[in-house]
């Protein structure tokens, strides 16, 4: 693990920013920088799974990555090189405007090399369906904080089926009121108890 990956794993924000900026100044490839950050994010995930890190550390990792990607994305566009681990569409379902969980998932997915299409909050079923048709992801993630959204998750799964898209996308759901019973009720493929579980699920869906 190089210095940047280690700084990411240790969530040393100042050091990360300094290393990313100096790396770009020295002409390092933005993709190599992202790869090091990814390695650090995997380390964060391992520490989370071992119980050393908690959700707050995942959230902070997501915050740091958001900040770093603002610097890296223009450089990546300039370099004209993009590689992606795959596409994941995410959103908070209709009626719910909470985004903490969704944002953590989105950033950690980006940190793991995925192209993330974030539909935002309060997303109606037809928006999810349109995004799946347009971006052809293998994974669709739905987030919720409020329990009245159970029928909405089910509605999205049904809408995908009605458009003939259900077979091509795995549906993962997560958020405070979501349980395995909700997964069964909604007809989703997977319930992610934590943000890292969504990343692992996406990796599996893309055969990694």
């Amino acid at each position: 693990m190089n210095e940047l990956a280690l700084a990411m794993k240790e969530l040393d924000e100042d050091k990360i920013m300094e290393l990313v900026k100096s790396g770009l100044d020295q002409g390092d490839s933005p993709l190599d920088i992202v790869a090091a950050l990814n390695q650090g994010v995997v380390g964060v995930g391992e520490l989370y799974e071992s119980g050393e890190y908690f959700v707050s550390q995942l959230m902070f990792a997501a915050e740091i990555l958001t900040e770093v990607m603002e610097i890296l994305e223009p450089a990546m566009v300039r370099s004209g090189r993009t590689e992606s681990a795959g596409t994941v569409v995410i959103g908070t379902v209709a009626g719910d405007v909470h985004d903490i969980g969704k944002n953590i998932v989105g950033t950690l997915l980006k940190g793991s090399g995925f192209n993330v299409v974030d539909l935002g909050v309060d997303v109606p079923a037809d928006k999810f369906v349109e995004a799946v048709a347009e971006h052809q992801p293998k994974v669709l993630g739905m987030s919720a904080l409020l329990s009245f959204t159970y029928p909405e998750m089910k509605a999205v799964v049904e809408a995908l089926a009605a458009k003939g898209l259900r077979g091509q996308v795995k549906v993962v759901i997560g958020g405070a009121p979501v349980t395995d019973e909700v997964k069964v009720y909604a007809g989703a493929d997977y319930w992610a108890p934590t943000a890292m579980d969504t990343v692992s699920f996406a990796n599996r869906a893309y055969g990694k």
Partner: protein
Amino acid sequence: MTDPKALFDERLGRFQSAMALLPTDRVPLGISTAAPAMTYTGINYADVSYRPDKVLESCLKFYADFPEIDTFGPPANYYAPYYDAVQNNSYKYPGRDLPVDIHFQYHERANMKEDEYEAFIADPTAFLLEVWMPRVHDGLADRQSPRYSLTLLKAVYAQARMRAEVGAITAAMIEKLGLPPAFGGGCHAAFDELSDKLRDFKGILRDIRKRPELVKRACGIMIPFEINKAVGGDPTRRFPPYMTTHKPMFMSPKEFDEFYWPSMKEMLLVLWDCGVRVRIVMEGNWTPHIHRLLELPKGSVVCELDMQNDIVKFKEILGGYHCIIGGLTDPDFILTSTTEMDEKVHWLCETIGRGGGFMINGPCGIPGGAKIENIRAMCEAVMKYGWYDKNVKHIPLPPPEKKRDWEPLIYTPFEEYKKHLGGSVTGDEEVIAKYWNAFEAQALAWAWSWL
């Protein structure tokens, strides 16, 4: 027995006994939200936010038909006109910004900048009034505009009206159905106030790394103000203030122990000395932090659990030390069958309920969208499996013993006013001071109620 007064005494006594870890006749049904009444009577969240008359009608109907329930949740947080009066920009309300059948939602945002800690710590009330209020309430955004003064006036009237209207619901529920409220007033842990309302969680995640001492000082400075809120909630001290906790679910034990717990513990210890037992609403998963609650005096708090908490672990560690409320999940109410509900309540009564100190509730309340037949099944199951001793007869208990009094906080004491008057008054100084200080206390409580 249908006399509301007798029912009230019995239910209140049962509720208080469970909180005090004393024997009860059965497991109480400690319900704390208005949502089941809404579902039952078909009113929506916009009605709950704007139509207290409909809320009362709905609650009277629901709770009359479910007489097994021992407490109800006053809809204080739902009263949207209060927030309209000041043009609050942080809450989204059904019927205003959200569809009518959606629960109100809070949008977290940094309303205090990272370099404003010193100003907040130096004079938190001044910061609240002069900096925070205008940022959060569009009606107060421009001090030069007449809207500013008018909005302040409206805010005072709106609060008085909210108290009167929500208070009338509580009074009617007691008088007509003999049903006590699940809580009286509310307060927050200082770290939650700092995180939810002032810095937002993204900000606080950086602050605990970059300016940890300022975070601790800011939490410390808020303790008396939060105590002030809690003590002011129910002067009779029959109903516990409600302390909803938001951030422990995200925090590692190390972070919790360093930043969250010290100010919360200090606050709870003072409140217990003042004879106030707090109903802590443990949102998300508090399980990694449970053992800290053993640092508080036995029975000094009540732990209301969200569905992510490991209730078995809570029972194992806190059983017989603090009362536990909860046990049922959102899917138990929304998705499962009545048979599954019956089995779950049976299990709860046999395990978590063993030895008392337990009340059944949903995860911090029964959710919107709960199946009525499942609520019925919950009540019936408690009547089947929840009995300890039918010979126990409940009457209201005296409030917890008080070791000290709490003087309401004031911003400018009478002595300052006396100096302003030239150092003396011609008449009865005591009576003038009494009114001065009473209005000061009311004004300060009003200011802090907005946070």
